[in-house]
């Protein structure tokens, strides 16, 4: 404990501040979640009584989230997109980690900064720049060859690429940090014990990286799931959940079903976050 201020009043104040901070953090989520159980058509006070209708009811006007086809489809697309993005970005994150930890090549520092860059480019700009490029390419191909490359038009692929473009930085940083802790002599030891290079990778290096890869995958998935700014510009007819919810709020009018979705997401993400922390914990040494 690097805390020498033994003044009890100060410490009490400090602890209260910390507690207040966490209440601040939780407040909007609690609010968003709590109104899911309000037996009202509007997500607002006054409290009309407890209900689970916004989860399970199957008729309008209180259509519960598990019966709301569009929300479920949004959830489904978010899920698919999240899986693709996290898989892809963990893969590239891993190769990046090897590249920057093990590789030796000119201008390595410069490339390393390039790798970090996407994290600090505003998401909106990533979205539009990719949209512009894809459209230009599609239009160019269409003009020249009269060929419609539909995958270059807003849609799942572009959303995946857009999210991938900055989530890869996150996964790369997480996996790089782990690989840096890897004792290179462990690979030499395996080689020395008779393993081939492939065996070494499979049985020693990748298992060592696995916790970081899983954690990076989960973080990537969560970030993908909640991303709005980049996705907004790239989404086609298959909208992921955040966009569906936004459209619902801005264009249709929200009911507590959105709170129900929020509640569902809060619980789901919380569980995922717990898992990611659990896998990353190293055994005491």
């Amino acid at each position, binding site marked *: 404990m690097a805390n020498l201020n033994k003044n009890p009043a100060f410490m009490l104040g400090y602890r209260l501040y910390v507690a207040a901070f966490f209440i601040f953090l939780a407040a909007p989520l609690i609010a968003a979640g709590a109104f899911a159980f309000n037996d009202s058509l509007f997500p*607002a006070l006054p409290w009309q009584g407890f209900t689970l209708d916004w989860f399970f009811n199957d008729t*309008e006007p209180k259509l519960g989230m598990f019966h709301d*086809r569009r929300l479920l489809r949004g959830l489904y697309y978010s899920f698919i997109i999240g899986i693709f993005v996290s898989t892809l970005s963990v893969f590239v994150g891993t190769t990046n980690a090897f590249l920057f930890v093990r590789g030796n090549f000119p201008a390595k520092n410069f490339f390393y900064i390039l790798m970090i860059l996407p994290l600090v480019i505003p998401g909106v700009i990533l979205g539009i720049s990719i*949209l512009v490029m894809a*459209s230009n390419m599609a239009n160019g191909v269409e003009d020249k060859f009269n060929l419609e490359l539909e995958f270059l*038009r807003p*849609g799942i692929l572009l959303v995946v690429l857009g999210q991938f473009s900055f989530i890869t930085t996150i996964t790369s940083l997480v996996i790089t940090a782990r690989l840096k802790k890897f004792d290179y002599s462990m690979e030499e030891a395996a080689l020395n014990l008779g393993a081939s290079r492939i065996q070494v990778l499979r049985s020693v290096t990748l298992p060592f990286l696995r916790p970081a890869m899983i954690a990076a995958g989960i973080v990537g998935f969560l970030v993908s799931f909640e991303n709005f700014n980049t996705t907004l510009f790239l989404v086609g*007819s298959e909208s992921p959940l955040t966009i569906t919810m936004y*459209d619902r709020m801005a264009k249709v*009018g929200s009911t507590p079903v959105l709170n129900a979705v929020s509640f569902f997401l809060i619980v789901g993400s919380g569980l995922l976050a717990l898992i990611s922390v659990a896998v990353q914990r190293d055994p005491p040494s």
Partner: protein
Amino acid sequence: ETLRLLTWGSYAPEELVQKFQEKYPDITVEVTFSNNEEMIAKLRATGGAGFDLAQPSHDRIYSAQLEYDIYKPMDLSKINTDVMEDSHLNGVKANTTIDGEVYAVPHQWGTSGLMANKAVAPDFKGWGDLCDPKYAGKTSMRLKRTILLGTAYSMGEDPFAAYSDLDKYQALLDRVADKLIECKANIKAYWKGGDDLSAMMLSGEVVASETWDSTAYKLYGQNKDIVFVPPETGALAWIDTFALPRKGKADDAAYKWINFVLEPENVTIMSGSTGAIAAVKGGLDMLPEDKKEAVTAAFTDADIANLKFFANIPPGVEDMEGKTLEKIKAATE
């Protein structure tokens, strides 16, 4: 086969979609909610791909088509144009014909106007009343072109007439902007979607607002004091249409959907969801009872006669209006 609809929120009620899919089991309907601007933006980005049927307002087709070539001509023979109210059909045709090809047919119409809580603001009647200090901090509007047009009318001008002379129109816009900036202090907040508006109205945080008529009708269902108020200078009327994106891949399904929603019993379901009046003969009568009540509570025949239909937006106007709105937003009270 998938029918990908690009339409307004609530223009594809789940009930109707189910019904349609039962009738045509090989067609699945996917709906993307949007608005006029986003529809154009999306279709522009895709070059008209990604969707099979779009529903922009009648005034937003002509220039978008000229500029970005995002729609394909309609085959009117595949549509039951007979059931449509002739004036709407002809109006839309007139607005959306390019090189002899028709690009849209009408679906529903409605108005933009005002809404007031009669219990608190009994004599609310014109656009200008939003800026009445009587209601300071208790009114709202949406910072989009509708309010520009409405304010212009309230200042005794005809903005659509000014479209022909853009310099004149700019001068008008400048005056409108001044008025709205002055009005800013009176406003509680600019609403962004039906959601904020409903919440503010129902909770009593605001007592009067610019509104979409459908929102007002919905609120009327909750609170009979909240009524749609056609402005004394005339409510602004729009017709939402059907248009085929240029690279749509399910034209037949799109035509099937168009004809399907024009069937009388479906019109009632649709209107029940949207609060707008179908552009079919006797559309008003096909409204569900509560909505009909709300409409009759709001409109007299004179109001209907006084509707101001949005005129086609010529190229350039969009930009001018956009800048004006930005100016208003950026101005401090």
